[in-house]
């Protein structure tokens, strides 16, 4: 967590091989990791920036983004207690779930972390990645980059070459963690943040982990850059509830890839929420890698003004007798664009697969908002149950009239419809704090529309 002596090259605009070397040296990393970072940088340099001609980027235009122009690293002060964190972060924590372990990454550095003694005693490890590399090198070396490799895509290459901060969670065999573990990523400079999350849930263990991203930036600020990778390993019979809550300020360009691997009879429930940022692109891939594994994938997004929110999902059925169920629901208003592209892939031999995928979009107002929905199936086994469905619609005038005829003003009626729409997802969220946060965020996004309508 050292904040002193950050090399000048890390604090200046521009990303380069020098930056990669300086970062690795600054963090005093083992040579295998330095080599890995350099290799990732080379891949990054070799890989062309995706364009709208690429299938995976057909609707999301990133041609204006000059990644290498961002300042690669920003330090932050170490704090001893929660009370010394920035007020806004304290507020996030207070409004969040009760937690049994907490980590706060402020810009590129971890500013504090804490684990309940009881969990420590059970052998649970929760720390930033640099500390983990020093104290638990073997397991980190074995798992890091295993699910989001440096050649996954251009952003993953950069995330491998220049990650800093991040978090590592290890839940030992059979340990059941009741109270959620939470990390916050807070960005209050114009620059970049490149966290990585590495979660290893050992056999029969269970845990809930929440990654939350927030920053005070507004549309009027210069662009900032967030680029992450999340690797989730869930062992045999283990269970992981993973929540990603992206609520960045409106000046952030957010890129993230979340991939999971499930052991026999393991279950993974993911909830990916995207509300903030100017542009947000998240890849969520569940690997059903062992028989009996089960993945529930929930997604919720709400884009307004000029936001672009893009999710690409994959339910990758590799093993037989596995189950996956995806439900992504989104709303778009103003000139916003949302993209959902979801693939169910059933590989040869993945018999008795049960896979479902649903994407529903709600367009609010009669403005120029757009929701793209691209559900796909790719099935190479014959004894499977798969289905997918996708709908995109507006708030029904007939429904609004019905509610208004009962005395409910239009704005309130719209709110009810939107909450009702998201209810299918939020009712499946068992975390009270997360649910309340979402309700407030949705409320705020709908609230905007009423003000504009009055204006």
């Amino acid at each position, binding site marked *: 967590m050292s904040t002193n002596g950050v090399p000048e090259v890390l604090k200046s605009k521009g990303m380069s091989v020098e930056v990669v070397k300086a970062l690795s040296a600054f963090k005093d990393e083992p040579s295998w990791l330095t080599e890995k970072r350099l290799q990732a940088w080379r891949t990054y340099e070799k890989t062309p920036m995706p364009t709208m001609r690429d299938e995976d980027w057909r609707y999301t235009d990133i041609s204006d983004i000059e990644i290498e122009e961002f300042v690669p690293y920003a330090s932050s002060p170490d704090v001893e207690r929660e009370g010394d964190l920035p007020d806004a972060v304290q507020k996030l924590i207070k409004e969040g779930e009760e937690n049994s372990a907490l980590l706060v990454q402020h810009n590129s550095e971890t500013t504090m972390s804490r684990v309940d003694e009881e969990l420590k005693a059970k052998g649970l490890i929760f720390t930033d990645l640099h500390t983990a590399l020093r104290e638990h090198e073997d397991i980190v070396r074995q798992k890091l980059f295993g699910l989001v490799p440096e050649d996954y895509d251009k952003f993953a290459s950069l995330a491998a070459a220049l990650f800093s901060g991040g978090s590592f969670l290890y839940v030992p065999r059979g340990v059941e963690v009741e109270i959620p573990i939470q990390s916050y990523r807070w960005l209050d400079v114009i620059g970049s943040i490149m966290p990585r999350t590495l979660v290893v849930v050992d056999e029969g263990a269970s845990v809930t982990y929440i990654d939350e991203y927030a920053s005070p930036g507004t549309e009027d600020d210069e662009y900032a850059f967030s680029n992450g990778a999340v690797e989730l390993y869930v062992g045999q019979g283990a269970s992981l509830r993973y929540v990603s809550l992206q609520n960045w300020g409106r000046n952030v360009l957010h890129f993230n890839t979340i991939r999971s691997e499930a052991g026999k009879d393991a279950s993974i429930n993911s909830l990916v929420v995207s509300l903030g940022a100017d542009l947000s692109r998240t890849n969520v891939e569940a690997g059903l890698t062992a028989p009996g594994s089960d993945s529930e994938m929930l997604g919720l997004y709400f884009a307004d003004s000029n936001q672009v929110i893009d999710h690409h999902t994959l339910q990758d059925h590799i093993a037989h007798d596995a189950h996956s169920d995806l439900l992504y629901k989104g709303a778009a208003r103003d000139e916003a664009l949302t993209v959902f592209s979801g693939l169910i892939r059933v590989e040869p031999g993945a018999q008795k697969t049960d896979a479902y995928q649903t994407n529903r979009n709600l367009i609010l107002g009669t403005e120029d908002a757009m929701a793209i929905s691209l559900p796909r199936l790719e099935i190479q086994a014959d004894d499977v149950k798969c289905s997918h469905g996708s709908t995109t619609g507006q708030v029904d005038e007939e429904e609004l009239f019905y509610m208004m005829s009962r005395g409910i003003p239009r704005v309130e009626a719209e709110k009810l419809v939107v909450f009702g*729409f998201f209810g299918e997802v939020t009712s499946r969220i068992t975390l009270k704090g997360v649910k309340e946060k979402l309700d407030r965020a949705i409320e705020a996004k709908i609230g905007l529309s009423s003000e504009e309508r009055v204006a």
Partner: protein
Amino acid sequence: MSGNGGGLMLKVENLHAEIDGQEILKGVDLEVNLGEIHAIMGPNGSGKSTLANVMMGHPRYEVTEGSITFDGEDVLEMEPDERARAGMFLAFQYPSEIPGVSVANFLRTAVNSVREQELNPMEMYKLLQEKMKIMKMDPSFAERYLNEGFSGGEKKRNEILQLLMLDPKLAILDETDSGLDIDALQVVARGVNEMRGPEFSAVLITHYQRILRYIEPDRVHVMLDGRIVTSGGKKLAEELEDKGYDWVRQEFGAGTQS
């Protein structure tokens, strides 16, 4: 006529309305006094639901001529929610399904919207329990999503439940009796009779005389091709049921009248 002789509750005058450029209402006149219950009958497509929707302010219809005065106010200038708050209520022929919004949540929002003073959760709960009992609805209905997956009869009961909860001055019931079994019809009739009194008026749109046995109308009107062509006492309803609409068409249909 057994009108209670109160003041004028509703006055529709020479109402013309169109949808997608097609004129449907071609000069409707209707007066309902305080405390009265009127029935409107008429063949399919004659414009009964259109009249109901226009009275409540459905956005798809355009009023091109005429006026609607409710309780002394010109309602054509009012949004549907304002009309509801002024005391109008429409039980829909085809109520909308609203996914994700529970009956209880919906009613709470609606009741608190029309009342000057909000009810506290306990009062709200009690009121809902009481009214559901009258409608012989299982309490579990309160937690179901509004009309989603409701049977035809359940939707109709739910409309009357809303009527009871909102306690309006004027209720327009658009074929609330259609598709109901005898028991349900009696329940619905009980719901409406519960409201009956000197401060409550209703317009029942129906095809069948049978509901009028339970809810006795002060006056019966016949609608044909976008107009109310004739009116009378409850005998008129019996006559219509016996003889059908042909004689009405012959006497009042297009071509026979101005």
